[in-house]
């Protein structure tokens, strides 16, 4: 289907099903139960899942295929956000021009940075991109936000004010980013028994774009261009000896993945029209590296899983506080209860980084291929137990989708 082979088609359909049905399976607990805390099916987080999914898919095109580890991808995300908010400020709240513009600007920016950084490879390339990203952050945070020339509005973040130009804004349109009048914030709540499901317009718009982005990534992975990029990863020197110039390929991959990041940035601005400088900081760049590695570098679906995993921890675990813990352990005697709370305390709330770090280490040590490898091992285990599949089939399945 759609020019994909059988295996990719099923993977694509899985991703489509996952994104369409996300409001249901992310809210598995009734809204009044004590486990409702772990529900992730509210608009903001669902939007984050798919937006960071796009970001990680794009990053994987560069890192997974060419092996070039960029530590500055957040810069493109931030540039995309600023571009989108400027469209909101000057022209219209409609998200289409904003997203298109953010992709173009991020692409141009990636071309510039990539052209310079790709003169080096390995650690030097990483450091160069990191330096550029930190420069962009500093520019956005203070230099470009002085009262005389305010492009980014500094630490407060660029936002839309009531007295902004907005040439094409009309009276009957929502005062919020919208798709031809459909507000990104529009949300339909479906109550089934004690379950509450959110269907957010902003989420579905982002989800459709993510599915398109995923499809494009699959096509790139399977194209001759993708093969060329993998050749760069396996042995670039040999490529040069055979007379091939790898630079145009790596630069193209860099720009494409920069555009993906710009798309993600534009969408972030579309669901929440404020662009803060922090999203360009090196920690944000590091985050997307973690997402990709955690999910499975070079696999198609890995980055999406990794993005979801990290965002879930960031938003759910960081909100568990001591009061909730005391509620959980209330059945224990007083002393024991306090002890349990004291033991668990460092891992929740502000300590969510610690939990994530431990999980990350476990994944890297025991599942070097990331969550995708974990899934495959479980599948293989089930198959072996059933004893139905032939050996040949098994080995075909266990190859990562590289």
């Amino acid at each position: 289907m759609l020019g994909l082979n059988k295996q990719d088609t099923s993977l694509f359909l899985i991703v489509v099903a996952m994104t369409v049905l996300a409001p249901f399976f992310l809210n598995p607990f009734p809204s009044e139960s004590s486990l409702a805390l772990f529900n992730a099916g509210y608009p903001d987080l669902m939007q984050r899942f798919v937006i960071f999914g796009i970001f990680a898919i794009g990053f994987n095109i560069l890192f997974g295929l060419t092996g070039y580890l960029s530590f500055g991808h957040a810069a493109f995300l931030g540039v995309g956000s600023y571009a989108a908010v400027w469209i909101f400020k000057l022209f219209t709240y409609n998200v289409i021009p904003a997203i298109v513009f953010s992709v173009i600007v991020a692409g141009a920016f990636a071309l510039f940075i990539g052209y310079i950084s790709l003169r080096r490879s390995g650690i030097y390339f990483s450091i160069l991109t990191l330096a550029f990203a930190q420069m962009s952050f500093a520019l956005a945070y203070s230099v470009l936000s002085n009262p005389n020339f305010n492009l980014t509005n500094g630490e407060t973040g660029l936002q839309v004010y009531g007295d902004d130009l907005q040439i094409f804004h009309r009276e009957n349109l929502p005062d919020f980013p919208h798709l031809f009048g459909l507000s990104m914030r529009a949300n339909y709540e479906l109550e089934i028994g004690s379950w509450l499901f959110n269907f957010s317009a902003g989420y579905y718009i982002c989800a459709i774009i993510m599915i398109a982005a995923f499809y494009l990534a699959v096509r790139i992975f399977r194209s001759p261009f993708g093969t060329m990029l993998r050749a760069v990863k396996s042995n670039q020197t040999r490529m040069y000896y055979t007379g091939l110039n790898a630079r145009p390929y790596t630069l193209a991959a860099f720009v494409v993945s920069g555009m993906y990041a710009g798309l993600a940035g534009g969408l972030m601005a579309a669901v929440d029209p404020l662009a803060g400088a922090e999203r360009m900081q090196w920690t944000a760049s590091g985050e997307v590296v973690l997402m990709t590695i955690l999910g499975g570098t070079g696999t198609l679906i890995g980055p999406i899983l990794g993005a979801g995993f990290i965002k879930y921890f960031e938003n759910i675990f960081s909100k568990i506080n001591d009061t909730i813990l005391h509620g959980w352990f209330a059945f224990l005697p007083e002393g024991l209860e306090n002890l349990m709370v004291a033991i668990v305390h460092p891992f929740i709330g502000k300590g969510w980084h610690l939990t994530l770090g431990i999980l990350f280490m476990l994944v890297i040590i025991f599942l070097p291929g990331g969550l995708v490898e974990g899934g495959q091992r479980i599948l293989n285990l089930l198959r072996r137990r059933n004893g139905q599949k032939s050996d040949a089939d098994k080995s075909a399945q266990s190859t990562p989708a590289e």
Partner: protein
Amino acid sequence: MSKQNLTRRGLLKTSAVAGAGLAVPTIFTAQSAAAYMNEPTGSTVTLGFNVPQTGPYADEGADELLAQQLAVEHINGEGDGGCLNTFTSKALQGNGILGKKVDFVTGDTQTKSDIARASAKSMIEKDGVIMVNGGSSSGVAVAVQSLCQEAGIIFMAGLTHSNDTTGKDRKANGFRHFFNAYMSGAALAPVLQNVYGNERRAYHLTADYNWGWTQEESIVAYTEAIGWETVNTVKTPLASTDFSSYIAPVLNSGADVLVLNHYGGNMVNSLTNAIQFGLLDKEVNGQNFAIVVPLYSELMATGAGENIKGVYGSMNYNWQLDNEGSKTFVQSFGEKFGKPPSNSAQTCYAQVLLYADACERAGTFNPCGVVEALEGFEFDGLGNGPTLYRAEDHQCFKDVLVVRGAENPTSAYDTLEIVDITPRAQVEYVPNHPMFGGDEASLGTCNPGV
């Protein structure tokens, strides 16, 4: 390998699927039976406490969280009732708000606008909070305030000192109890004039972001009004940890006062560097060199240790204040947590109580009712003395403290001593003051969110 089998039929099929996909979201439109955003229907009402739990202001955040918990206890009628006993408005009965028990959720702003907004959004969308309180940075406050305005809930700002929060970025759904940079200037100038005279030359080091600029602007305006000359204003990157390269030029500039428009760790480092360079022992233009830190906090004072001795600055509140409300609050806070509250803690405590009281007086949680109840509200008994919530810009007006690093502190907590309490009349300004956005700044209209 790629398969380029683009057929007419295939294209039609694809576009039909894509079209159907695009049409899906139009089925959903915002619809709600509630009268306003997150209307509490059960027996509880949820407040959101969004404070920095990690990052440079984590200590302040932790203190704010304690104060907020204490406020919730008092509103629910647990503990000793704290400032409910001294508060001039007697609407709160100690049985929650409007008979509903108060619950709260917490979030981590990390002192980053983006993260703070994400955290506030999840509180609003997932936990159904009706009010967000807290924070320790103006950038975050402005960002979260505009989010709350869009979403249709109330924002009670925590520690935010930039003029913009209730200046050009003021919002109908947002309220600030904390004082601002303009008030710091207005309060400090007369004291500085008394201590250092009119013939001074000031050199500013300013944290290079929004808050730094508004504070520099305010202090420059006020010190020049008392006859001081501004030699130079230098912006320092926020991420700096070593300020030596910025301090050295001060020595040769002919300035005899150094104004540090820095906060938190920045201020601790720049002050320490300045002391190491021996600035305070210098004599320039026949006068002793002086250092001024316009915005002080207890945590900064503790961080800077010995170095702050004799250095002047201003504060919103100090636990040593001698009035009924302050004494009650300090006792209540001290008994529970074993230390006196910081000024950010006091602001957050007061804000939660003020919000609860406004709901009670309005008889509803509807943001528009709460806004009406808070606008122009005069009160006392929360620690700052008589206070007004001005209707035009949602800024609190109250006395401002001028403090000085104590020469002989007797404990870890009295590192600052109150020099002067500047009366409210002296720090007041017109709502359309040019430093506060001028005539263009407007609150807009209150947004109930539906």
